């Protein structure tokens, strides 16, 4: 099968890879680039475990081809922390124990960060709707929502300082 050469930016770094046309961005991230933070829960756009941000928009990496990443800017869960400092969303997930098995967590972290970048002060309802495309089979969502809203207020406090 013909391979395509793709130049893109992932988590701020220029990255080049070869991929087959039917490979998804998720396949490439996990199997070619060893960025295994993004998970494959369903491969059909339903669970959000593969959520990444492409050119400022969050998308399911299982529903995007690797070849489509040419010239785009991709952020995965591996690019959310700054060096060793966790992003407030990540920190609050730990503090609130907003995970059990953790399979859904990378997708939630990326989606929650995208939410707070766009809306620093979401209501609980807004947060729940925004995260409706992320499924969790363990937590019952409540702790996740609490962590996200707490991260939002933390980030507003930091921004005010």
């Amino acid at each position, binding site marked *: *099968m*013909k391979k*395509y050469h793709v130049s893109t930016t992932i988590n701020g770094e220029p990255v080049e890879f070869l991929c*087959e*046309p*039917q490979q*998804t961005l998720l396949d490439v991230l996990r199997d070619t680039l060893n960025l295994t933070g993004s998970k494959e829960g369903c*491969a*059909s*756009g*339903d669970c*959000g475990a593969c*959520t990444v941000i*492409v050119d400022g*928009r*969050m*998308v*399911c990496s*299982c*529903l*995007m*081809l690797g*070849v*489509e990443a*040419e010239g785009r800017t991709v952020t995965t869960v591996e690019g959310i922390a700054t060096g060793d400092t966790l992003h407030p969303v990540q920190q609050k997930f730990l503090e609130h124990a907003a995970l059990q098995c953790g399979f859904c967590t990378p997708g939630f972290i990326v*989606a929650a960060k*995208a*939410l707070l970048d766009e809306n620093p002060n979401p209501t609980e309802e807004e947060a729940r*709707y*925004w*995260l*409706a*495309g*992320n499924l969790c089979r363990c937590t019952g969502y409540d702790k996740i929502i609490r962590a996200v809203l707490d991260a939002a207020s933390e980030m507003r406090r930091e921004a005010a300082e």
Partner: protein
Amino acid sequence: MPGLSFIAPTTIDEAVRALASAPGLAKCLAGGTDLLVQLRSGRSRPELIVDTKRIPDLIGIRDAGDHFVIGAATPGASISACAPLCRAWPGITEAVDLIGSQQIQGRASLGGNLCNASPAADSVPAVIAARATCVVAGPEGTREVPVEAIVTGPGQTSLKKGEFLVEFHVPKPAPHQSDAYLRFIPRTEMDIAVVGCAVNVTLGERGVCRDARVVLGAVAPTPILVPEAAEALVGHWLDEETLARLDAAARRASKPITDKRGTIEYRIKVAGVLARRTAAIAFKRAGEC
């Protein structure tokens, strides 16, 4: 998928040439939220994928005076973020907003929703109700057709080999014209419509309806324009008698199937109820603008 190729042309001509000269099945790619699912399941086995998102005409929303131009591959998130469009056609933008999750909104387009040709596609009824047209490019040049002329059956369109959708032209509303879209699903998010209904009305003197379009989704092989339902509204206020006639016309037009989301009887009943509720919202909005 032996022999699959991919191209991402930057002009309409280049895309038409590629689609027209492919010996086997060639598929356009917009957001991929239908196409990638179908590739994976084996339901679609193209030999060429043509990514349309690098053609400038297909991305973005423009104000063209008496109408809006929406690029066929513009993602839902951009459509919901377009304030003038949301003000002009709250029904269209609320319908687009219903498509999938925030992640799906990052990619899902109007062109993909239409050309995937699902009877339950959420954006299609509202776009048809607004008398929108679409520009189709092909080997013989471009043609402009009403949106309702595109879908011919589940998964089937009237597009010929080498043709693809460039953009939608959505007329601007007249004074006291507005729209609404409602779908009925068993949960609050992330499901496919049991029934969808779009109503677009223009009110005249003393709030009497002088023009209407009613479109139902998920109750026939394609979204259906229901002229009898529009006739039930024109010349009337939205009183109980009018609502009852609208309800009956919507039920008569519904030719649904039974599936896991609902039976024939249930869908027909819901079509009538949803038509009433959607009309109430459209009338209220039209009275306020």
